[in-house]
């Protein structure tokens, strides 16, 4: 019974991964791709690891440690990518409603220029 | 599991060809990173987990950084196309 439950959990996780891949293909700009891609797949990966741990019960502690590492490091990399995209001046999609970070950045640059 | 291996091999070949014809060198570095990821998976499938672990540790951290430093010291695009 336990292997079937574990395999079903892995199946749900894999479905979330496919959804993340669809999201990374369909979304219009890098920020939305980070939203749909790398972060939506976090739940998929964690579910798949837990499911494999239920399937093969000996591996469960190690897989939980891997899942914890993924949960800690994944926000770091997606935050770094989003920040790099904004600093490199990657434009936001046409649907974008507002961009307060650019508004907050713009006056400061002018101040620095007048100061120097 | 064998069809996963076939898919992985096809993905590797496609990525390698794309990396050769890529103009932006940073994109080529990213593609090489993906290829080494898949090489690591194939090492695991071929019953060599120690080699795969070394490949993972070297490729994930070291090669990318070394490539990026090398690109920083030279140029961003391939020579010959002054656009």
């Amino acid at each position, binding site marked *: 019974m336990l*292997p079937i439950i574990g*395999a079903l959990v*892995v199946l749900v*996780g*894999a479905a979330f*991964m*496919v959804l993340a*891949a669809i999201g*990374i293909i369909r979304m219009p700009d*890098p920020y939305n*791709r980070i939203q749909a*891609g790398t972060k939506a*797949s*976090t739940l998929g*990966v964690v579910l*798949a*690891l837990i499911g*494999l741990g239920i*399937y093969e019960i000996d*591996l469960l502690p190690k*897989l939980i440690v*891997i899942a914890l*590492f*993924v949960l800690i*490091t*994944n926000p*770091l*990399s997606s935050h*770094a*990518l989003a920040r*790099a995209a904004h*600093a*490199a001046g990657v434009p936001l999609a046409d649907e974008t409603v507002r961009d307060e970070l650019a508004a907050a950045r713009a006056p400061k640059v002018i101040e620095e220029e007048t100061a120097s | *599991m064998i*069809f*996963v291996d076939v*898919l*992985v091999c096809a993905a590797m070949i*496609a*990525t390698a060809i794309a990396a050769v014809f890529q103009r932006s060198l*940073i994109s080529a*570095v*990213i*593609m090489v*990173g*993906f290829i080494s*990821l*898949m090489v*690591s998976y194939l*090492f*695991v*499938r071929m019953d060599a*987990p120690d080699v795969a*672990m070394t490949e*993972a540790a070297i*490729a*994930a*951290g070291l090669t*990318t*950084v070394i490539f990026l430093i090398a690109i920083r010291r030279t140029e961003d695009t391939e020579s010959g196309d002054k656009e």
Partner: protein
Amino acid sequence: MAEIILVTALGLAAVALIMGLYRLLAGPCTVTRAIALDLLTLITIPLLVGAAVWAGRAVYVDVALVYGILAFLGVLALARYLEKGI
């Protein structure tokens, strides 16, 4: 029964890998390619563990462990380069 479901799930993960590969190859900008590499690394971790479970060798899990710890380093280096250069 359980094995069939497991192989289906791993095949689904491989399909997600191929779909993410499309973004890696066709991505319009470098940041998009880095995002795709991040996603592909993340998908590969369960594939490695799946190979370990399929072969019945617990040693294989250590490779996934190394990727879980170190995978974000490459992406972090890329992001830092794209932001201001190393």
